[in-house]
């Protein structure tokens, strides 16, 4: 299974659309892509997960790592358009209390 991430800039907002399945095999690819993003406190990052059809705890690890880096750099990070299943994953792990997460609906991160 493949994972794909596309970015688009809208002023100070960096929008990322992630597509595919995030598991043990694809998580390192996603991690690398997210690590490439240059963060500075002038930008906000919004990642659209509407096209993520599967994610396991390894995928969660990638977002946790990225969230920690964003927090360190004082960058606003938001995950949007999560499916019910993904939302639940963030909820039972307590991450939804910590990170800015928006389930369902039509976000403006579509590319």
């Amino acid at each position, binding site marked *: 299974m493949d994972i794909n991430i596309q970015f688009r800039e809208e002023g100070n907002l960096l929008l990322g659309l992630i597509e595919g399945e995030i598991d043990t095999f694809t998580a390192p690819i996603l991690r690398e892509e997210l690590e490439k993003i240059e963060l500075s406190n002038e930008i906000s990052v919004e990642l659209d997960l509407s096209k993520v059809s599967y994610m*396991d705890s*390894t995928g969660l690890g*990638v977002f946790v790592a990225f969230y920690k*880096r964003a927090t360190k750099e004082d960058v606003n990070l938001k995950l949007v358009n999560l499916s019910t299943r993904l939302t639940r994953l963030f*909820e*039972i*792990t307590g*991450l939804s209390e910590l990170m800015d997460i928006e389930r369902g609906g039509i976000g403006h991160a579509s590319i």
Partner: protein
Amino acid sequence: MEQLKLDYKTILSNYIHNQNERNLYIGQNFIKRLIQKNVTPEEVISIHKQALEDIIEDLPEYTIHAYDFLIEVMVHFGLKLKEHQSLLMKQEELRIEMEVAAKIQNTLLETTIPNPEGLDIGMISVPLRKMNGDYVHFMHDHKRFLSIAVTDVVGKGVPAALCMSMVKYGLDTLEYANSNPSYVLEVLNQLIEKSVDDGMFVSMCYGRYDLEKDIFTWSSAGHEPPLYYHSRENAYYDLESKELLLGILPDVKYSQKDIKLNDNDFIILMTDGVTDFRNREEFDPRQYIKELALSCRHLNAQEMCDNIHKQLQVLHNYKLEDDFTIVIIKK
């Protein structure tokens, strides 16, 4: 080497004079001998060239040049082959090391299921690969309290196993089975948060069972919610919690809740490998497990665990994709 060259000449000569299957077969077997003796591809061509020069007296000059050319270019091929062979050897060394590490892990993380009076406990934990990223820790002071920790480290294989050893020693140093679950999670969180890198974390459900009062006190750190079956009501309760995984932030506070267990009630603790129905999305995993458990509740806790594992293996065509752990405690 000289003998090999002479043998090759004979074999080649026989084949040139009579191109039958037998002569070809002898040649193929001979090549196997050369491989065993680590003869390089370019040396084989060189042997062939010399043999041909001996067999055919007036071999044209350009054919000899062509062979020399082939010998030169095959040197690179030979080097690649050597590299490949040495990689194979290294791979074998690593495989042996992994075997040893897995054995050590099995010894370190060995779990003995306690057998207290008045409570039935069963458990199954099956790693996907050699090393298990799930771990179950029991503590029983042979008095009033018994504790159970069901743990899952993100990721699989060696990194998960190393982290798990740390969790085990953390749990061991807490020593007493009567500690408050929320306290245990708070201490472990501190320990793990200091020691792991950013993408790593541990989920844990920790429960303490009071054998005198039949009260199960539990806390969860980002773990797959346990299932509680209330026999008298014939209903399940999801023991949901939204408290954070271990290892993400320092100084996290956890809460704990009590459940009073009555006869025939049971609690299923599991890891996310049990509820991962990746390729069977038509099923609601937790609902499916509830029904499975209900259908075999007449069995003892261990048989229930084994039975659920077996049924899920069948459902997933014997291709479970994650470490798989279930613990059942049954009154």
